[in-house]
C-alpha cells in the first residue's frame, strides 16, 4: 500500500489561507507520495488550463516527488434544471478523462447525479461509461465510481457496477472505496459557512454500520481507496473509522493501491494539515505502507 492525500482535505483553506503550491507542498511535507485532486476545484481555468499551468503542474510533481493518483470529476445530471442526455454525459466524461490523462492521473472518479431518494445513479451512467471505455483505454486511465456513504457495499448500485465489468470485460472500470462507508458513528462537521440541504424538511438517510468484512467480496475490483476521516484525537485515536480492521484486511489480502487521505472533519485554519499528519502517523503505526 502507498499513502497519498486528496486536496479535497484542504477545502475552505484552498484559496483562503493556502495556495495550490502550499497544499501540494504540505502533501509532500507530511510524507505522502500520492496526490489526488478535484478537477473542477484545483485546475486553473478548468476545463482548459493553460500550457503554463500544465508545465507548473509537472514541475511541482517533480520537485516534490509526487505521483498523481486519482482525479475527481462530476457528471452533473440536472444542469439548467433538466435531465442530462447520454451525449452530454459522454462529453463531460471525455473532457475529464482527457484532462486527467494530460495531468498524468491513473484513475478518474466521476461523481454521478442521482435519480432516487436512495441514491440510485442516473441511468445515463451505463451507456455513457460504455461509450468512453475506448478513450479510457487509449488514455490509460481507469474510471472508478465512488462507493460513498450513505451508499453501502452490499447494494444494487455496486452489483450493477460489477455486472457492467462482467458484461463488458473491461479493465478500465473499477470501484473506488471511500472509507466513510465504514464509519461507526456519525461526525457532525463544525465551523465553515453554515449550510443546509433544502427547505423541504428532508433529512439524510439513516444508514446501518457497514462491517469492514463486507469489503472482502469486492476488494478485487477496488482500484483506489479514499481514506476518508473526520477526527483523530489528541491520543492519536480515531473514534469514527476502524482503521486497524480495515488496514489488516488490506494487508492480509495483499492489496497494493493508494490510500488517499480525505480529511472531512471540522473546519478551521490549519486543521487539515494537522489532522492529515495525525492520520498518516496513525496509519503508519498500524500497517506497513510505503
Amino acid at each position, binding site marked *: 500500500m502507498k499513502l497519498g492525500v486528496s486536496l479535497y482535505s484542504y477545502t475552505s483553506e484552498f484559496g483562503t489561507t493556502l495556495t495550490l503550491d502550499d497544499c501540494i507542498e504540505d502533501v509532500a511535507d507530511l510524507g505522502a507520495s500520492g496526490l489526488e485532486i478535484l478537477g473542477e*476545484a484545483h485546475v486553473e481555468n478548468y476545463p482548459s488550463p493553460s500550457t503554463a499551468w500544465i508545465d507548473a503542474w509537472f514541475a511541482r510533481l517533480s520537485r516534490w516527488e509526487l505521483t498523481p493518483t486519482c482525479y475527481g470529476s462530476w457528471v452533473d445530471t440536472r444542469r*439548467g434544471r433538466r435531465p442530462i442526455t447520454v451525449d452530454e454525459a459522454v462529453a463531460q466524461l471525455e473532457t475529464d478523462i482527457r484532462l486527467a490523462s494530460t495531468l498524468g492521473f491513473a484513475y478518474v472518479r466521476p461523481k454521478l447525479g442521482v435519480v432516487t431518494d436512495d441514491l440510485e445513479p*442516473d441511468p445515463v451512467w451505463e451507456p455513457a461509461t460504455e461509450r468512453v471505455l475506448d478513450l479510457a483505454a487509449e488514455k490509460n486511465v481507469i474510471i472508478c465510481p465512488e462507493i460513498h456513504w450513505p451508499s453501502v457495499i452490499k447494494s444494487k448500485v455496486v452489483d450493477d457496477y460489477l455486472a457492467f465489468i462482467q458484461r463488458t470485460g473491461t479493465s478500465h472500470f473499477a470501484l473506488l472505496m471511500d472509507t466513510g462507508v465504514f464509519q461507526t458513528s456519525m461526525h457532525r462537521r463544525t465551523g465553515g459557512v453554515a449550510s443546509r440541504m*433544502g427547505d423541504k424538511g428532508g433529512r439524510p438517510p439513516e444508514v446501518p454500520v457497514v462491517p469492514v468484512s463486507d469489503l472482502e467480496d469486492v476488494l478485487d475490483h477496488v482500484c483506489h481507496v479514499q481514506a476518508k476521516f473526520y477526527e483523530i484525537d489528541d491520543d492519536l485515536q480515531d473514534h469514527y473509522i476502524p482503521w486497524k480492521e480495515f488496514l489488516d484486511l488490506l494487508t492480509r489480502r495483499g492489496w497494493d493501491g493508494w490510500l488517499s487521505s480525505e480529511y472531512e472533519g471540522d473546519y478551521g485554519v490549519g486543521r487539515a494539515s494537522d489532522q492529515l499528519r495525525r492520520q498518516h502517523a496513525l496509519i503508519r503505526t498500524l500497517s506497513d505502507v510505503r
Partner: protein
Amino acid sequence: MLDVPMIQTRGFRNSDGGFQVRLRLPYYRGVWTNLLEGVSLTVDGEEYAADTIGWTLAGTDYTLAELVGSDTARWPVDVPATLTVPRGEPLSIGFHTVAAELRLHMSYIPEELQPTIWSEERRLVITR
C-alpha cells in the same frame, strides 16, 4: 487570497446606482453556473431578491438568468463573484449588517434535499 467567510471584506462598496458585495463560493469545487439558483441579500433588514442582483465573474457581467442559461460559464472555487445591487440611495458611511443566502443545485443529492443553501451574516463597513 480570499477571506475565509463567504461574504468578503473586500468589495463591499457603493457603486453607480447601488452597491456591491463580493462572495466566495463556499463549496469544495467550482461549478457550472447553470447549477446556480442564485443569491439573495439582506442589508440592514432590507431584502434584495436573487433575480434583481447582477453578477460579475472574472471580469464578465451576467444576469442570474444568463448564468442559469449558460452551458459554459463557470464559478471557480477560488474566484470571488461580485454582486451588484441596485439601490436608490448610496449606503451610509459606517457599519452595515449584510446577510447572504446562496442556493446551488446538487445533482448527486436527491431532489427533496435541494438546493444546498449557504447562509451568512457579517457586519461590514462602508468607508465612502
